[in-house]
């Protein structure tokens, strides 16, 4: 019996073989060490993400999330839902709030759910993996299993938007949240201070308005380099992808020489807990984090 159990919502990008599969890999290793049991919600579906607003409208988006709630509730009773993707977490939390505060919306949603043979009694708590770590366990618990502290390595904690606004993690300031820095320090790394910590990476506009998004990404990476960081650390698959995969294009456009690996907090923790490069999903980084790979090898 694990010390904590959660209904796990990986989301489309963090499932096996998807664009953030390495996130999943590292999360699984991390949870194993921490004795957290995460059970995937059977037959879960896409949360709709923020960008679907135009095509989906309101109710269908809530219905999609509601279906996941209902499935979790019936198959994994009593367990909080934990998501690793910031957008999934935010989308689900918004749906939960709206449904709980708007009877008309709730009634319509139930009616729609009926079509799929489901219904909601009470919506479970919805947590981001980071909340599980720092609120349910706490930094001290997270420190205990550290075998190989990431001494001397400098990371810029890139919080971005959706774990931070509008709900925030652990009631932290929207302008200068520190949970990511604390996680970095918990595993022995150094968190460098820089002023683009909560700048938006452009989100979905990376596809639709690449120029605008890449201009913002440039600001972020630049500031991270200026702060002396060797790597970026994020809690969000979309932030990770945007800040990592476009560095080449940005270099072309702006003549910069960006080559900064972008890691998930879970990858750092897995390594610090003594996990291998593979367990940490380092092979999943497009810009290889050589320094960490060597570190893992030692």
């Amino acid at each position: 019996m694990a010390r904590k159990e959660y209904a796990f919502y990986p989301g489309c990008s963090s499932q096996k073989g998807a664009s953030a599969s390495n996130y999943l890999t590292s999360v699984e290793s991390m949870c194993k060490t921490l004795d957290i049991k995460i059970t995937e919600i059977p037959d879960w579906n896409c949360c709709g993400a923020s960008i679907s607003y135009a095509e989906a409208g309101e109710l269908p988006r809530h219905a999609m999330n509601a279906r996941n709630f209902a499935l979790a509730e019936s198959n994994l009773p009593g367990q909080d839902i934990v998501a690793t993707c910031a957008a999934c977490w935010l989308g689900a939390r918004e749906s939960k709030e709206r449904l709980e505060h708007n009877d008309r919306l709730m009634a319509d949603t139930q009616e729609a759910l009926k079509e799929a043979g489901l219904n909601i009694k009470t919506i479970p708590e919805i947590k981001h993996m980071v909340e599980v770590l720092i609120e349910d366990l706490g930094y001290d618990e997270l420190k205990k299993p550290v075998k190989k502290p990431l001494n001397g390595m400098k990371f810029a904690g890139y919080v971005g938007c959706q774990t931070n606004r509008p709900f925030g993690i652990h009631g932290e300031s929207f302008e200068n949240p520190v949970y990511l820095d604390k996680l970095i320090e918990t595993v022995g790394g150094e968190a460098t201070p820089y002023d683009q910590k909560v700048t938006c990476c452009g989100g979905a506009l990376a596809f639709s308005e690449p120029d605008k998004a890449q201009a913002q990404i440039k600001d972020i990476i630049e500031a991270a380099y200026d702060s002396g960081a060797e790597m970026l650390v994020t809690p969000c698959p979309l932030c990770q992808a945007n800040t990592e995969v476009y560095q080449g294009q940005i270099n072309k456009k702006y003549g910069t020489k960006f080559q900064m690996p972008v890691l998930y907090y879970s990858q750092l923790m897995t390594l610090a807990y003594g996990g291998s490069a593979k367990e940490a999903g380092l092979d999943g980084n497009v810009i290889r984090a050589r320094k960490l790979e060597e570190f893992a090898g030692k």
Partner: protein
Amino acid sequence: MSNMNEQMAAKYKNNFLKEIEEQAEMGDWVKMCMQCGVCSGSCPTNFHAGWDHPPQEIFMMIRAGKREEVLTSNSMWQCTSCYNCYVRCPRKVPITHIMHGIAEYAYRLGLAPKMQPSLHLSQTFWNNATKHGRVNEVQLTQSLYFKDGIGAGIKKAMEMKDVALGLVKAKRLNIMEALGGGHKCKDVDGIHKMLAKAKELEAKRKAGKAAGA
């Protein structure tokens, strides 16, 4: 579509504010804006490229009844959902959602700019996600590249080739998905029924409000 636009315009006469309040998600918050402009100043895209109209100006235009200008505007589509405006608003106006809501309504009326990239992304994403219940990232990427036709698609694909290859190397892009394999929900059928119902109910609710207008 366009005749739906005319119907709505007619139903709400000149009261565009009321139209937005009833038809756009969170639209009933528009009236609470006091024109401080903190939202406009907080928007990341504002400082890189600028908009035709920042949020607070859009709200003023709504109150001033500038229906056509607002609904055909490109502005709402610039939202990155970063929520800066929302958390800083001294009136706690959910600006992010209102932006989405107005965009969605403009699209519903057929007034959104043609081939607006974010709109196209939204359509593509949702259709892709709901087809099997989960996103098929490869097909999503493909359909995005080829939105402007084969030629442009190939060109774009070439531009993005390094990105794609990188992802493939990193096992973060599953070629199987291109061939329709990959992630699916089991109860796709149930999901489709559910969504059909949801769309129907939402349409009914909004039509009901319009009727009351």
